[in-house]
């Protein structure tokens, strides 16, 4: 690990973040939009871990932030999928363009 530095990790997470952004903007299906959000959260996690490893190896705060982000992402995915399934029951579709009322 001599020549793999912080910048490699930052570039990787940057690319991953904007791939997630691209997916979030193009997809019109709720489950795939959720997948894009997971990609974005993962790129943030890589950032935290890389900063902790290469800049502040004497602390563990980046690790704790990563752990909390993973926990919150799990809770968010569970709630989002509950909403998606409820939406599918009422509208018979999960396309965001066809679900255009909040009546039910």
């Amino acid at each position, binding site marked *: 690990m001599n020549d793999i530095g912080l910048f490699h990790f930052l570039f990787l997470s940057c690319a991953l973040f904007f791939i997630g952004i691209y997916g979030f903007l193009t997809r019109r299906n709720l489950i795939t939009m959720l997948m894009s959000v997971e990609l974005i959260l*993962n790129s943030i996690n890589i950032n935290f871990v890389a900063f902790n490893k290469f800049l502040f190896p004497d602390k563990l705060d980046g690790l704790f932030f990563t752990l909390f982000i993973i926990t919150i992402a799990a809770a968010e995915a*569970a709630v989002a999928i509950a909403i998606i399934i409820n939406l599918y029951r009422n509208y018979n579709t999960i396309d965001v363009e066809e679900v255009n009322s909040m009546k039910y």
Partner: protein
Amino acid sequence: MNASTIIFYILAATIISGALLAVTSRKIFRSAVFLLFSLIGIAGLYFFIDYEFIAAVQIIVYVGGIIVLIIFSVFLTHGSGEDMKRPTIGRAAFAALAAIFGGVLTMFLISQHTFFPSGKTGIEPSPENIGSQMLSTTEHGYILPFEVVSMLLLAAMIGCIVIAIKIKVPPHKILPETDEDGIEIFDQKQTTLENKQIQL
């Protein structure tokens, strides 16, 4: 170009190609599987920089939990083998332009920036150190966020049950209503429909 560099680039290629295929594939199940490969690559990246605990948590929570949840919801909401609609050219072009512009700008800003490492000796990211520091009540402890996140998990669990529960109609609403003598009151609409059919 030593072995660790090659391993890093293999992991990076796995992550990036998995993510690209996950956001562009038109079959939703394949998309979920490509996302799975990307997440496994990220876990490998955590192993690569010797953070085994985070890598284990990544595999357990993401690969074992979230991907399985996503695949189940795909099964519940999609017919098998249906292609998703292709995004319109304008939207895809605009999104690609925004992503590429943002990515190039951010990478440029990162490459211009100089980071200053603290230069202190490292602390071993072992489960012992992580656990004792996370649950300590001293200045650098994380016991309060830990408790708050446990409350969040409880709230999310109850919220999921409340949102996704199927409310059953109580049985007395399904049975035909009866008046005081126990004679069934016919549904008005149904009776008129039957009358019409008789007339026809």
